[in-house]
């Protein structure tokens, strides 16, 4: 079960968010200030942090926690929407969501962060594939066989899984997987996506796992 540490001084909002998150299957610890936060941080998978808090503000708490535990994703949740605040927040936090928000958006963003930080140990079902996110094992449900990916195909697929439901542009994919700036006209990425599709798609001519979003990029959607 995913454990979330939630720091929010506003009682009504805190109570509501906690309830919504529990309903969605998360385990939530809610604190009304940054006091005593350290004893929880090492035991959680994600931190939800408000900015305006009594005592130490959210930015200071967040920076301190990120220094000590860089592997725990931090999502800032604030009614402060100025560019300066967002810029300061994102200098250490992994996402910034402004109030008011829809609980669905909050949980969607939580999911993205959990996947990015590989906090999930569960299995994903994508079309006819069963993917265990921890070790990236891919099983074809139809045949029950494991699909073996080689080198770059593996990293490419892993990159898609970490950015599930997000549309990734050619540049983002190339730079994320190859670690080099994308040069316009380079066909390497296309070739690797074709190889990957040949391995994982039921019908590579009509791909359903890796969608092509025309003019933008590619997406793997659950």
């Amino acid at each position, binding site marked *: 079960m995913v454990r979330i540490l939630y720091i929010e001084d506003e009682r*009504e909002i805190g109570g*509501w968010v906690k309830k919504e998150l529990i309903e969605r299957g998360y385990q939530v610890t809610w604190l009304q200030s940054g006091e005593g936060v350290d004893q929880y941080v090492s035991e959680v998978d994600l931190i939800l942090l408000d900015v305006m808090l009594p005592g130490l503000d959210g930015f200071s708490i967040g920076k301190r926690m990120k220094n000590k535990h860089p592997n725990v994703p931090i999502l800032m949740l604030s*009614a402060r929407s*100025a560019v300066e605040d967002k810029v300061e927040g994102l200098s250490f936090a992994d996402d910034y969501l402004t109030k008011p928000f*829809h609980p669905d958006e909050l949980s969607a963003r939580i999911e993205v962060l959990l996947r990015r930080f590989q906090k999930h140990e569960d299995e994903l079902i994508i079309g006819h594939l069963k993917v265990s996110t921890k070790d990236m094992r891919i099983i074809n449900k139809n045949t029950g066989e494991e699909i073996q990916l080689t080198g770059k195909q593996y990293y490419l697929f892993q990159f898609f899984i970490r950015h599930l439901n997000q549309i990734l542009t050619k540049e983002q994919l190339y730079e994320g997987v190859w670690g080099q700036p994308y040069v316009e006209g380079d066909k390497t990425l296309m070739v690797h996506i074709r190889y990957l599709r040949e391995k994982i798609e039921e019908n590579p001519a009509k791909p359903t796992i890796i969608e092509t979003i025309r003019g933008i*990029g590619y997406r793997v959607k659950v």
Partner: protein
Amino acid sequence: MKNFFRSLQAKYMLIILLAIGLVQISFVGIAAILTGVTGNLEEERWHPNIIEEKWHEEANQLPSISAEEIKEHFAKWKQAFPEASMFWVDENGFLVEKMDVRETLPIQWTAAFTAKFIKDRYGGDPFTVIAFLGEEETNGFIVLEIPRVNFQSPMQTFYDRFGDVILFGTLFVILLFITISYLFFRNIRKRLLHLEQSMTARDKDGLPIQTAVKKKDEVGQLEKAFNDMVLELKESKKREQEEEQLRRELIANLSHDLRTPLTKISAQTYSLLKENLSPEGKQAVKTLQLSIRDIDRLIENLMSYTLLMASKYRLERKEVDVVRYVRESIASWYPVFEKEGFKVEVDLQLFENNHWLVDPAWLGRILDNVYQNVLRHAKSGKFIQVKTESTDQYDAFVIMDQGPGMKRESKEKGAGIGLSIVDMMVKGMELDWDITSSEHGTTIRIKKYK
């Protein structure tokens, strides 16, 4: 008084005085040398007057007037003046004795010839002294002749000997004065140029940099005044920044304070939806939720608008690959349009130059506002197209929908302020935009002129 001696004026006066002093010193020096040299000359060569006096004196005092005595007297003078010639005319007018006489002289001297001789020789060349022998005029006379050339003036002799020294000495003094003046002005020029450089250089705040004050003269005072000015500028800039910060804080806090209750309302409506509500009740709650979203957007826009109007919205322009940026922006909006059943057409081609000098946050805000407007006001068209367009004049991003077009009332619903923000931001980044709207849809072009 102390300051006066540190001033450039005082220094320049000093140089002038020094120059005058040098001229004086050289005059005195030359005079001194001259006196010394002429003193020596006097010793060597007697002055004509002295010679004349002496000739007369010795002629008077000859002990006896005999040929031997006179010969001896002539020999003595010949020794002292080797260039001299002498002769003796006796009481009867006969030329008795002569020594080294170059001209031809008559043996018998008549009164007329004597008078003519005296007249010819008076003030002429050679220098001639005629002296009677003994106490009386009856013993005849002796004549001494020395070519004038031997009595050259001491000045002339001096110039002949030391002319070069004086010439070079004068040249040296002039050169020295020119050099000192040159160095003096070169130093001033150097410092003025240095100050000019300090005035044109800028630090990271865009303010001039203070310069080091090394001397307390006029240039030093100028440097100090400049430094004071820089300090004042810095302080005023700091004050301005503090005010700006305060203003931003105020608006940010205001927006925070407005959003917090809004979040509570939102939470409550969301909880309400989970209750068993009648269809009317559900519809009412949904409308409530939409209104909350609108208010949220309005607060955001109002805040940006206020900051933009006061030119206090942070702008940090840098080279951004805009085609890539716009593609990533539509990628993040795609799911929203997809959910609303929009057909999304994207056709982004490379420009000749993809790098525009923009603030990515501003560009993002412009696109967000345009997309939000499409979502709100052009939902019925179910279509959005984002493409690039290049003409001879401009490169542009074109965002087109097939909604009912912009009518007056839609402006009142809040599209107005969103588009005002687009307008201010586009112009703030030196770009341009236009909007065309009909009942078949709205097209927005964000342009950069070539």
